C-alpha cells in the first residue's frame, strides 16, 4: 500500500519541520535519489539475476540495497543540510523555503542529466513476478505480496524510530530541540548534531521508501520525487507536522484515501489529496495529532 511509503517520506518532512521549522522541499528528491542508489547498487553488486523475462533479486539482496540506499540518502541529506540550510539558520523562513526549492530543482534537473530521463527497470522481488494474483482483495482495492512486504519494512522502521525517540538520549534530545532549540542548547545539547541526526534519519527513511517503491512499480525516474513528495507532505500536514506518529498516521490515511478514490473515480485522486489538505488546514491546521503553540505578546 502506498500509504506506508507516504508515511516513511512524511516522517522526514515532519522531523525536519519539528526541529528547523523548515519545509524541506528537497525531501521528495532525496527519496528519488535513494531509489536510484538502490537501482545502481543492485546492478553493480550483481545482485540481480534474470529469471525468465524479468530481473529478480533475492530478499537478502533487497535488504542489502535498501541498506545502501538508506546510507546514501542519509549522506545526501546531511550534505544538503550543511551546504544549503545551515547558513540560513537565522534567516527569514521564506529564504530557507526558496533554498529548499532550489535544492529540489537542482536534484531533479541534475538527476535528469546524470541518470538520463528514461525510466529505469527495477528488479522484482524473487518469487513475486509469477504472482499475477493478489494476496487479499477488499472491494476494488488490491494488495500485493510486495505491498505486504513494504508494510512490514515500513512498520519495522517506524517502530524503531519511535523507540529511539522515546527511550534513547539522542532521541530525547531531538524532541527537546524540536520543542525549543535555544533552551535545549542551554541544556548542553548541540543543536547542530541533533539537526544532522534528524536529517540522517529522515533522509534514510526516504531512501528506503524509494527502493521499496521501485520494487513495487518496477521503474524509477528522476521526476518521481515530485508527486510522491507533495502527497507525502500533505500526509505530514494532515497527521500533524512535527509529530512522528502523526506523520505515520497521515501517510496511511492519505494512502488509504488515495486507493479508495482511485478505485472509483481515478481522475480526481490528485484533487482529492489537495482537498484533504485544505480541509485539515481549515479545521485543524496543526493536524490530527499535532499540538499548537501559544504566541506571547
Amino acid at each position, binding site marked *: 500500500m502506498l500509504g506506508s511509503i507516504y508515511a516513511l517520506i512524511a516522517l522526514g518532512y515532519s522531523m525536519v*519541520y519539528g526541529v528547523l*521549522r523548515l*519545509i524541506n522541499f528537497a525531501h521528495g528528491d532525496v527519496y528519488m535519489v535513494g531509489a536510484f542508489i538502490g537501482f545502481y547498487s543492485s546492478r553493480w553488486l550483481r545482485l540481480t539475476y534474470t529469471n525468465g523475462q524479468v530481473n529478480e533479486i533475492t530478499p537478502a539482496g533487497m535488504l542489502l540495497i535498501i541498506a545502501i540506499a538508506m546510507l546514501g540518502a542519509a549522506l545526501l541529506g546531511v550534505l544538503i543540510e550543511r551546504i*544549503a540550510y545551515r*547558513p*540560513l539558520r537565522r*534567516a*527569514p*523562513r*521564506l*529564504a*530557507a*523555503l*526558496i*533554498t529548499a*526549492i*532550489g*535544492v*529540489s*530543482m*537542482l536534484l531533479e*534537473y*541534475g538527476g*535528469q*542529466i546524470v541518470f538520463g530521463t528514461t525510466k529505469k527497470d527495477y528488479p522484482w522481488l524473487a518469487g513475486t513476478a509469477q504472482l499475477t494474483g493478489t494476496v487479499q482483495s477488499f472491494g476494488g482495492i488490491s494488495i500485493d505480496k510486495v505491498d505486504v512486504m513494504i508494510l512490514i519494512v515500513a512498520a519495522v522502521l517506524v517502530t524503531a524510530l519511535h523507540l529511539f525517540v522515546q527511550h534513547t538520549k539522542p532521541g530525547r534530545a531531538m524532541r527537546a530541540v524540536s520543542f525549543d532549540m535555544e533552551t535545549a542548547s542551554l541544556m548542553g545539547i548541540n543543536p547542530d548534531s541533533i539537526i544532522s541526526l534528524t536529517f540522517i534519519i529522515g533522509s534514510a527513511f526516504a531512501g528506503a521508501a524509494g527502493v521499496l517503491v521501485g520494487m513495487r512499480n518496477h521503474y524509477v525516474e528522476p521526476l518521481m520525487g515530485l508527486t510522491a513528495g*507533495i502527497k507525502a*507532505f*500533505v500526509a505530514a*500536514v494532515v497527521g500533524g507536522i512535527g509529530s512522528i506518529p502523526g506523520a505515520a498516521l497521515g501517510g496511511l490515511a492519505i494512502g488509504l484515501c488515495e486507493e479508495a478514490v482511485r478505485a472509483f473515480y481515478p*481522475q*480526481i485522486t*490528485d*484533487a482529492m489529496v*489537495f*482537498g484533504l*489538505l*485544505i480541509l485539515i*488546514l*481549515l479545521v485543524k*491546521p496543526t493536524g490530527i495529532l499535532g499540538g499548537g503553540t501559544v504566541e506571547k*505578546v
Partner: protein
Amino acid sequence: MRLRAGSAVRLVVWTAVLAAAAMAAGALIKGPLGGYYFRLLILSGIAVVAAVSLNIINGFSGQFSLGHAGFMLVGAYASAGITLFAHHSINRAFDAVGLPAGARTPVEFAIAMIAAAAAAGAVGLVVGLPSLRLRGDYLAIATLGFGEGIRSIFVTVDALGGASGLHDIPEYTTLTWVVLAAIGVVMMSRNLALSTHGRALFAIREDETAAQAVGINTFKYKVLAFVIAAAWAGIAGALLAHSDKNIDPRSYSFMKSIEIVVMVVLGGMGSVTGAVIAAIGLTWLPELLRAAAVYRMVFYSALLIVMMIVRRQGLFGRAELSIRWMAETLRRMTSRALGERR
C-alpha cells in the same frame, strides 16, 4: 470622487504616449527581429504583471503565497471563455452599437481581461478568506494546496477542456496590451505603496500585533492584498492564454508559482522595481542560456541557492528606483570622483 483636472489629463496623456510607443515598438520588433524576440518581450511583460502582483502579497503585506499560478489559470480560462464562446454574442452587441471593425478586437479583449480579473479576484477571495487566518508556513501550504487544487479541477473537468486544455484561442495579445498591463500594475503598486493603505500593509508585514494595536484591521487588509494580486494575476493569465493561443492547465503548476516567487524574492521582496527587473531578467536568462541546453536549469537552481545564502534580500531589498534616488546616487558618485571636495 473627483480627479483633479491636472492629474487626470497627465494620466491620459502618459498612457496614450506609452501605448503609441508600444504599438510602434511592437510593429518594429515583430518585423525585422522576428517572432522569437517578440514573444520573449511579451513573456517578459506578462512575467512583470505576475511578479509585481505577487509582490503585493509577499512583499507588501509579508504573507506567503505559493499558489499564484492558480489565479493565472482562472484568468486564462475566464478570458478564453469570453473570446471563444461569447464571441458571437459580443459581435452582435457591437453591431447593435455600431462599433467600427478596427475597435472590435481591442474592446472584446478588454472585456475578456476584465472578466479574467473579476474571476481571478473572486477566486482569490474564496482562497484568501480561509487561508489568511493561518500563520506563516501554514498559509504557504494552504496557498500551495489551493493552487494545485485549482489546477486539478481544470485538468479533471472535461467540460472545461480537461487535461488537454483549451485550444484555438485567438492571438489578441499585443505588445501594446502587455506594456499597458505592466505599466498599470506598476503604477497601481506604487500609488498603493505611497498611500495610507500601503502603510497599513507594510505595518502588517513588520509586526502584525502592533499593527492591530494601532487600529489596522489586519485580516481585511491581508485579504484585500490577496484579492488585488489575484485579479492582476488573472490578467496575466489572460494575456498568456491569448499569446500561447492555448491553455495547458498542467503548465500552470506549482512550478510556475515558484518561478514567480523566485522573481519577487530575487528582485527583493517589497520592491516593485526589483520585481520588474527580476521578472524581465529571469524571463530572458533561461533563453540566453539556451546554448547550455540541459545544464541551464541546473545553473538556474544553483543560482537560486547561492543567491539565498549570499544576498537574500535580493537585488533591491525594499528599496525602489526613483528619480530622486538616481539623482542622489549620481551626485554621490560624482562627488566621490571629484575627490570629496565640498
